């Protein structure tokens, strides 16, 4: 009798203008119930003011095996970081 509710991933936006952040998952029959359940499970202590619920099956994820080739191109470009450039102290804060 497996009639298990699908899995949803829950994202919450906190109060201070931060973006939505993944907080966990839950089971729910549909989107409306997913949001209601997320309210009950993940916002019991003022954790947020906005909820996104996404059915887990709809999330595409990068694969850990591709970690090397996927991120390598940016690893070699250290000049993308501000600390790469030495600016004389006389110039002041930049």
């Amino acid at each position: 009798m497996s009639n298990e509710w699908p899995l949803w991933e829950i994202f919450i936006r906190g109060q201070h203008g931060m973006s939505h952040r993944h907080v966990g998952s839950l089971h729910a029959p549909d989107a409306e119930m997913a949001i209601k359940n997320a309210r009950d499970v993940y916002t019991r202590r003022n954790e947020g003011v906005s909820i996104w619920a996404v059915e887990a099956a709809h999330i595409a994820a990068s694969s850990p095996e591709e970690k090397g080739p996927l991120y390598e191109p940016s690893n070699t470009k250290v000049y993308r970081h501000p600390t790469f450039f030495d600016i004389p102290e006389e110039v002041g804060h930049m």
Partner: protein
Amino acid sequence: MYAQLIKTARSGITPRDEMTDQEREFQDRIDRNEKIEPKDWMPDDYRATLIRQIGQHAHSEVVGQLPEGNWITRAPTLERKAILLAKVQDEAGHGLYLYSAAETLGESRDELVRLLHEGRMKYSSIFNYPTLNWADIGAVGWLVDGAAIVNQVALQRTSYGPYSRAMVRICKEESFHARQGYHAIMQMAFGTPAQKQMAQDALNRLWFPAMMMFGPHDSDSTHSEQSMAWKIKVKSNDELRQQFVDQTIPQIEYLGLDLPEPGIKWNEERGHYDFSDPDWDEFMDVIRGNGPCNVDRLAARQKAWDDGEWVRDGLMAHAKKKAAKLAAE
């Protein structure tokens, strides 16, 4: 603890030169304190052991609602009732976080629940003891959640990412549980002589069951070694138990209650309290299903599951119908 006597899916510890290259690389990541994430390669036994431990932990949270739920309708004040209700609701949430963590390993929640109901998975032995009166509710929050915190704080550093993150969330909420329990006990310990006696009696009865939560002695805990090497377990049973005793004795003294057993003595040399062993035969007996409440607890779980079936099915049927209608438009 909330997970006791977890059989590691592998007996003994695999020496490095017997590991495959993949296993060696995996062990190196663990040794570097890297978190293992759901889609990463992991040894089958690591996965199986984690499912057992996280599953048992989840079951403990859910079954743990029963001894306290028992007192919601009889809480002494409306405020205490609201607090207890909030605590018990938290426990349901903790169960959910943990089932979700287990699900990332490829085990469905329904399957874990089925294994629990069939008696093929366990929950913590502590919940097979009854809560006889209101003082027990205070003592459960104070001692049982207090013991759980000691274990779960350590587990925040566990090697599996989703388990570790669930522990971080749980620890934040668990502190409320322990404090509300201690607060309730304080009121009784500083109340009438009869109330104080109830607090003392609850402490005396729950002390050894709380000690058992940490599981057998390290020397008898044959499955721990590989779990420690994989950092599924972070601290040993005896280390955690000692930590719990050391932090709890001053709390007992503050309440003006007598120590629950005569073996508790400060040991200057060790810098820790000495204490007596719980009755390990009783522990094994409770684990085997013969504690005072084992039958009741499982029956209550099974009944809740069966009684809820029409709701689960009904909501799913409604969702499918709505989706079909939307697709037809």
